[in-house]
């Protein structure tokens, strides 16, 4: 398991606590995210993750024909594509509309040249598994507008009619209850209904006072209001359209007809698998031969907003076929990207790759894992995405490991499982620039060696001289800086080496606005004063599992 770094988003921790939870707890993984899934709000200067952003739909489209469906038709078409897009019930790939074969000449070669349009009846055909809809009896006279042709059959299904009746029954109660809840609570941000800004504006407009008309209030003094309130609380009983048992006999859900079919079953392929069945809106028959093609469900394009300042973080383009974004404030454009590597395993992997992939006991131990009781260096590579150079300072967060075991010996072991040392001073990372602007790497390397002042051959130093080599800035290349750290693993340590690391970096921002805090320089000459901003975030570094030392089973000894 390769070492990983995840970034911390404070949305889960509540308002006062800003430090991340201890990483060895299983529940803490919810707060840490890989960098590519995080966003950054410029107004709040904060990291946002997928759990805390508010999401609103900006458009619906069919993933097959890429047709943008207006939101009004989405409900009417039951969230599925209204054109010729169907998914194969067997393999769930897209179906193709094909014409039937022309009458056969008898020798396999077509006697009449095939026309472009083809001959009716048309049917749906899966190129992947060669299923066709004629097996379930669905054929069409025209090759276009298939969804409309199938609509009649869909709507007359008994489950669909039952659902329509349920909707009609509940609709008046839903309407009155939603209106009353709106008049109680003026549009505040922490409403239980997930309102987007559009609907919030609409509901606020609806609740506005109209001169000359009394405001609707369920607790009103008038008799009309009280009557409505009385009606709102009770609902007439719902009578279903048909008996419950009848639906079962139509082949929906397990009863005697299903048992009979199972008894007569010859092979496992006759029963439809779970993946084939759960796309349906209601339960259908279990048999594979009864599976029908479904219209392809629509996908939606979402735009994401910061939860506190409502600034748009992600806004996709309106066209369904474009994958770009109008607004794209991702954290990777603001925070330095960090990767961690264990150099001793990388050397081992490189030599092992050309050989056969047969792992032996010693291979497992060396590759990607650390032995208890030893110390290992690790490399952190930071990549600067900004156009200005930054100064980075790393610090390891103190971990309070509280053991909840009964015996005392494991408690002692867990108290100090491993110790991490990182360079404590701040180091610069160069600015991001185009590839041709960077100098040669050779000059950089020579400088670094002189600064460190050590031979590269020594690897087994654990004293102060060894620390200078492994802990500190190792390499500076383009906009990447590699720093080394060291982790010392205790003899009785178990589990994964995971520690929280606080990263703070300062960069020069050229904001023309006057600064709020007093950290800016007092003299204010325009475009000359460097406005230095500091941003701090937490990360969790996972270096991998610790392998306990096996003293008796070690084959190398």
């Amino acid at each position: 398991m390769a070492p990983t770094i995840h970034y911390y988003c404070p949305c889960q921790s509540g308002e006062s606590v800003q430090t991340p939870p201890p990483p060895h707890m299983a529940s803490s993984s919810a707060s840490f995210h890989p960098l590519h899934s995080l966003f950054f709000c410029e107004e709040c200067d904060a990291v946002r993750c997928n759990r805390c952003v508010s999401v609103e739909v900006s458009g619906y489209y069919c993933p097959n024909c890429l047709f943008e469906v207006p939101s009004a038709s989405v409900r009417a078409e039951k969230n599925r594509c209204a054109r010729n897009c169907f998914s194969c019930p067997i393999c769930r790939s897209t179906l193709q509309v094909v014409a039937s074969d022309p009458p056969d000449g008898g020798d396999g070669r077509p006697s009449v040249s095939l026309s472009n349009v083809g001959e009716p009846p048309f049917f749906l055909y899966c190129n992947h598994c060669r299923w066709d809809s004629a097996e379930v009896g669905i054929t069409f006279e025209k090759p276009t507008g298939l969804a409309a042709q199938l609509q009649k059959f869909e709507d007359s299904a008994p489950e669909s009619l039952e659902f329509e009746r349920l909707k009609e029954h509940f609709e008046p109660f839903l309407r009155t209850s939603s209106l009353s809840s709106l008049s109680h609570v003026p549009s505040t941000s922490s409403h239980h209904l997930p309102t987007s800004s559009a609907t919030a504006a609409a509901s606020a407009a609806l609740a506005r006072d109209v001169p000359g008309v009394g405001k609707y209030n369920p607790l009103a003094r008038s008799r009309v209001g009280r009557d409505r309130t009385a009606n709102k609380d009770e609902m007439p009983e719902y009578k279903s359209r048909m008996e419950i048992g009848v639906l079962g006999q139509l082949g929906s859900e397990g009863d005697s007809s299903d048992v009979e079919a199972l008894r007569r079953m010859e092979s496992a392929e006759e029963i439809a698998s779970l993946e084939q069945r759960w796309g349906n809106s209601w339960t259908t028959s279990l048999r594979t031969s009864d599976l029908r093609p479904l219209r392809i469900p629509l996908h939606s394009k979402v735009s994401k907003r910061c939860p506190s300042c409502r600034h748009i973080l992600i806004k996709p383009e309106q066209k369904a076929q474009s994958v770009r974004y109008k607004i794209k404030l991702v954290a990777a454009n603001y925070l330095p990207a960090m990767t961690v590597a264990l150099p001793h395993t990388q050397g081992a992997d490189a030599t092992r790759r050309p050989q056969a992939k047969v792992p032996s006991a010693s291979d497992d131990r060396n590759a990607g894992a650390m032995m208890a009781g030893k110390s290992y260096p690790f490399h952190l590579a930071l990549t600067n995405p900004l156009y200005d150079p930054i100064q980075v300072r790393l610090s390891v967060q103190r971990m309070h490991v509280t053991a909840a075991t009964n015996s005392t010996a494991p408690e002692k072991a867990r108290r100090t499982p491993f110790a991490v040392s990182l360079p404590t001073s701040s180091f610069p990372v160069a600015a991001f620039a185009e590839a041709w602007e960077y100098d040669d790497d050779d000059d950089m390397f020579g400088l670094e060696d002189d600064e460190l002042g050590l031979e590269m051959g020594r690897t087994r130093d654990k004293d102060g001289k060894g620390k200078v080599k492994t802990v500190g800035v190792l390499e500076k290349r383009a906009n990447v800086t590699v720093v080394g750290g060291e982790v010392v693993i205790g003899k009785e340590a178990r589990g994964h080496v995971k520690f929280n690391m606080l990263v703070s970096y300062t960069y020069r921002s050229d904001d023309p606005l006057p600064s709020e805090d007093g950290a800016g320089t007092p003299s204010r000459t325009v475009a000359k004063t460097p406005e230095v901003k500091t941003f701090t975030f937490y990360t969790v570094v996972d270096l991998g599992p610790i392998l306990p030392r096996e003293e008796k089973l070690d084959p190398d000894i």
Partner: protein
Amino acid sequence: MASGRDDEQMRHADDENTGDITIGPGTVVHPKATIFAIAGPIVIGSGCIIEEAAIIVNRRKEVMRVGDNNLFEIGCRVECPSVGNFNTISTRARVHHTVRISNYCVIGAACLVVPTDDETLDDYTSIFGPAAERRIWSGRGRIQEADLRLKHAEYLREMLPKFNRLRRGDGA
């Protein structure tokens, strides 16, 4: 040594063929296709299309017979003792020497058809998916597909010589 009726077939200079191979008329063998008749001879029918990096190998002493109008797509590997007509072996599929393919079969992309026992695939078998599930095709649309295959081969016969060198007669 390669022998065969080369008058109407089309073979390219870059393909690696070894052994006793007979190829029918109208077959198109793309460059970088490999036909290995290591242990026994291979007989390929007419109108077949063997695309790049396809490997047809016969490791048994008996004759390996491949029928007419088959399509061996890129990167596939076929070792069957017999293949029928109008089959399609899709990209990167592998078919073991224990399988005998009949007619109008479709082996899907990247499918591994490697049963341990000898097996004959029925006509119109379609193998698809990562688990190589099988189902029987109803055969609807086979005439259109056959027509497409013929047009495919015809197009290749017309276009490929413009861009590749041909091997005519006995190749070394």
